[in-house]
């Protein structure tokens, strides 16, 4: 029971890290980016390649995955994405789904279509059992504990940056109303490029962390695109606590649903999403006042 909750929370935290960049960029520029999962996949493959071919230690791989995908994100933002912000949503959907298709096919070409296996270091492999035998039996995989710790630290860090720093207040101002923010002398374009890069980097980090839990193969961007979009659509795009709760809810619901009703599979999650979106089309956790 608690084990399920634990696994669900770990899964949800992972989803949050993967999707938070998407949520911020969508809130900032009203841009529907279906290729977000491609960045996560790049991070995952970067880690796997570094660990297997060059034997870089796991802990060092994570910052590299972050930096590598952030760089890629910044590059693509400056060259391609920049032209898309003013286009209609149909164009954005077509463009980003095209990018996702391209990433799937190229990874397939270079890495092969098989599932990648990640060799975790020994100290992350174990499992701790608490209160064994009682109703509250809790089994914690060490790797999942690690994921929760890293993601929680990141969440606190993000919240601090958004809430307390000058960059954060500029970002929030731009999300609420980009035109007025630009009028006040905030360089919205630059803010957006930085946010996009960090968001892609976080996705890459999430992909690296999640390669073992979620599985990593070339169809990753399309397979998990739905999950990212659910997090964003349900959580709303105006804050990062919304997506956090949405991701946790999704993680717990998905793990519990698959455990208790394996017959139904992902059915529960999708139905829940549609029900929530019919009930509150703007997302569950929307702040009043923002646009």
């Amino acid at each position, binding site marked *: 029971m608690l084990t399920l909750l634990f696994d669900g929370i770990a899964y949800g935290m992972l989803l949050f890290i993967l999707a938070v960049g998407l949520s911020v960029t*969508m809130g900032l520029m009203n841009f*529907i980016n279906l290729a977000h999962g491609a960045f996560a996949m790049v991070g995952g493959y970067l880690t796997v390649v570094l660990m297997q071919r060059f034997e870089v230690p796991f802990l060092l791989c994570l910052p590299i995955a972050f930096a590598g995908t952030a760089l890629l994100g910044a590059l693509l933002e400056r060259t*391609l994405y920049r*032209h*898309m912000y003013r*286009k*209609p*949503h*149909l*164009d954005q*959907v*077509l*463009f980003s*789904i*095209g*990018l*996702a*298709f*391209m*990433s*799937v*096919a*190229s990874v*397939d*070409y270079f890495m092969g279509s098989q599932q990648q296996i990640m060799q975790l270091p020994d100290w992350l492999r174990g499992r701790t059992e608490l209160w064994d035998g009682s109703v509250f039996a809790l089994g914690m995989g060490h790797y999942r504990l690690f994921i929760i710790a890293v993601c929680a630290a990141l969440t606190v860090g993000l919240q601090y940056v958004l809430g307390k720093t000058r960059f954060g207040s500029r970002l929030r101002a731009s999300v609420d109303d980009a035109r007025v923010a630009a009028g006040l002398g905030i360089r919205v374009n630059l803010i957006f490029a930085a946010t996009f890069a960090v968001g892609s980097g976080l996705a890459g980090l999430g992909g690296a962390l999640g390669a073992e839990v979620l599985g990593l193969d070339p169809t990753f961007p*399309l397979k998990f695109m*739905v999950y990212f*979009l*659910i997090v*964003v*659509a349900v959580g709303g795009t105006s804050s990062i606590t919304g997506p956090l709760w949405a991701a946790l809810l999704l993680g717990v619901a998905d793990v519990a649903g698959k455990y208790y009703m394996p*017959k*139904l*599979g*992902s*059915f529960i999650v*999708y*139905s829940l*999403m*549609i029900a929530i*979106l*019919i009930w509150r*089309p*703007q997302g569950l956790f929307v702040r009043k006042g923002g646009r």
Partner: protein
Amino acid sequence: MDARQQLLSNARMGRWEPLLWLLAFVLPWAMPGHALIVNEVAIVALFAVSLDLVLGYTGIVSLGHAAFLGFGAYAAALFAKHVMPDPLMGLLFGTLCAMLLGAACSLTILRGTDLTRLMVTLGMALILMELANKLDWLTGGSDGLQGVMMGPVLGHFEFDLYGQTAAWYSLTVLLLLFALARRWVRSPWGATLMAVRDNPLRAMAIGIPVHNRLAVVYTVAAALAGAAGALMAQTTGFASLDVFALERSADVMLMLVIGGVGWLYGGVVGAVVFKLMHDVISGITPQYWTFWIGLFLVVLVMVGRERLIRPWLWFGRAGDQKGGAQ
């Protein structure tokens, strides 16, 4: 020319249209080896026309239109297997089923932003795929629904191995439904649809019932997609899970964009071009053709999709062009 005359002249059939259809009907007879592909093109063209009703005439960005295609396909296949093998009854049944589903789903797309609609439509397709996968006693699960035997069309024309009958059957259905859809969007009722697309707020202010229009057009589009699905299941004798796949919804959107949005022939033209392109590219690289499709999409959007169907814009100033479906 006043507005009334303009509307009427838009609605009139062009001189080239009977020729085009005649050519399409002659093709399976002239080139029996290509009858199968004519059949496929006719089916996806019907599917694209159906998406055009939603996307081009009301501006709803749907990533899950395959839900109705798949629902129609499974409904028609099951009908043929368990009730009766008559194709026309099956077609009717598949269409009706998809229409009912569309009527139910239309409630979900009335409110919310583009993102919400995208998610809801996509979620619907995923739910149906999951259902078709899990209800394997009924649908055959991931193996697909096999052993669908069809009776002859109208009691006379047996489906043959080369797909000539299938091609004519699909083309006829396409022609009929296309003509109906065109008559419909060119009517005053259809004009209100375009008003809703261009500005829902103003449309509401002049007394057009916006929600009602959206719901009806979504239902009709679902019916057309269901008909396409039924045709697909009947002419291939098979229904599998990939009818619900995201790739299918994305492909049909690409077709529509190639041919031009908001112009029912766009779906037909796009389907022809897309299928030919698919054939050529997957002949060269069978495994990686999605890469080229993706590249095509990216380049298409970067250049501006208006310019593909209106080449004279190439020489105009960049500021002159406007997006198609706002």
